[in-house]
């Protein structure tokens, strides 16, 4: 559960498409095709198929839906991370979360419901001997 930050998908500078600076107060629906970095205030909805990074000075009152989410600031709202949701030591989440992989660092705060999405696995069954029924046993004896 307490893994190193570098082991998980991070926001790539090259794919960052949206940055909300520290002095920005944004209201409304923030949609992007690339990574989103939030260091300021956002109220509304945040959506991307890529990653969302919420900085330590950020204050987000919004629902967040993304592939990967990293939280170091405050989020009041529901979060859905298709892959990984990571709450760092300074992160505070007040809302329900849905994630494939959840990482919570010591010192983080989370208050809400948590649902883990589990991908289906193919389970290999070892071959077993079939038990013979009494009728089948009788037939075999007669055959002998």
């Amino acid at each position, binding site marked *: 559960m307490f893994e190193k930050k570098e082991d998980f998908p991070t926001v790539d500078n*090259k*794919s*960052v*498409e*949206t*940055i*909300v*600076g*520290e*002095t*920005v*107060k*944004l*209201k*409304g*629906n*923030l*949609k*992007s*095709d*690339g990574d989103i970095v939030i*260091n*300021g205030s956002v109220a*509304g909805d945040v959506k991307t198929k890529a990653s969302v990074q919420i900085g330590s000075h950020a204050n987000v009152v919004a629902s967040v839906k993304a592939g990967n989410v990293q939280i170091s600031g405050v989020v009041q709202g529901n979060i859905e991370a298709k892959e990984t949701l990571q709450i760092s030591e300074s992160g505070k989440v007040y809302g329900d979360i849905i994630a494939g992989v959840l990482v919570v660092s010591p010192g983080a705060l989370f208050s809400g419901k948590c649902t883990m999405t589990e991908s289906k696995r193919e389970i290999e069954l070892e071959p077993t001997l079939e038990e013979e029924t009494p009728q089948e046993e009788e037939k075999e004896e007669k055959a002998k």
Partner: protein
Amino acid sequence: MYYYILNPASGGGRINKIQDRLKARLKELGIAGEFVKSIGEGDAAKLAVMGIKKGFKTIVAVGGTGTINEVINGVGNSGVAVGIIPIGDKNELAKSLGITDWQSACNILAARKIETIDLGKVGKSYFITSVDIGFEAEITEQKPAENSFVHKTLYYKKALSWSSKFKPQKATINLDNECTANTEFFNIKITNSSMPGRKKETTKGMLDILVTGKMSSLNSLKYIVNPDSLKQEKKPDLSLFRAKRVVINTKKSLPVAVDGKILYKTPILCEISDRKLKIIVARKKGPMRSNVKNKS
């Protein structure tokens, strides 16, 4: 045949010194044509219209960004190709297309690699590279045409003085009617082509909006000289957005520079237009972005 529109005032009048050499070189390359001179503001656009009426298929702007912008607005949706011969050193548009000086521009014209790009629109004007509001708009027309040490020193001295007086402004930025950002800013740059430091190509048909937050006078001067020179921790607070349509309101009405020339004041509506421009670019791709379609 090529139609060359010269701005005699470009580059501090430098065109007058190189005109004969320029014409000789163009003739050497087999792309000589008709030369006309603009006589004032707005004249280059009218000359472009005249060139199209005369049947020319390539209109070449010989001058700075202001001349190029007028020619772009003049050619409209005619479908003619536009070429550039930059005169003076402040031609950021030409540099973004891989055209560094008049000599290389002649070779590029002769090679005739044409690309089609979406034009941005602000007010009634079309633009090819960027719209600036804030500090860069205030100083854009003051940038030295000459690249000499003396001119640059005088310019930076002025810029330091401006930067100490320039107060961060407040803006409301509406993006595609989806969200609104309120912020203080030092500069807002809306670009339709490559931005320094960005490696990912812009999604076709989109504008990039870069908002630079407030910073100290010394850092603002460093930023003007070379944005990369600021250490990471001293870099201004940056915001970056992407949209097809952006409306910018400021508390105080501020000048708006379009492709390096102040044309409007805030509030403004800026969007990607349905107008496309065929432009002759360098064969070796510069930082042109993905709203450029390659055509051989």
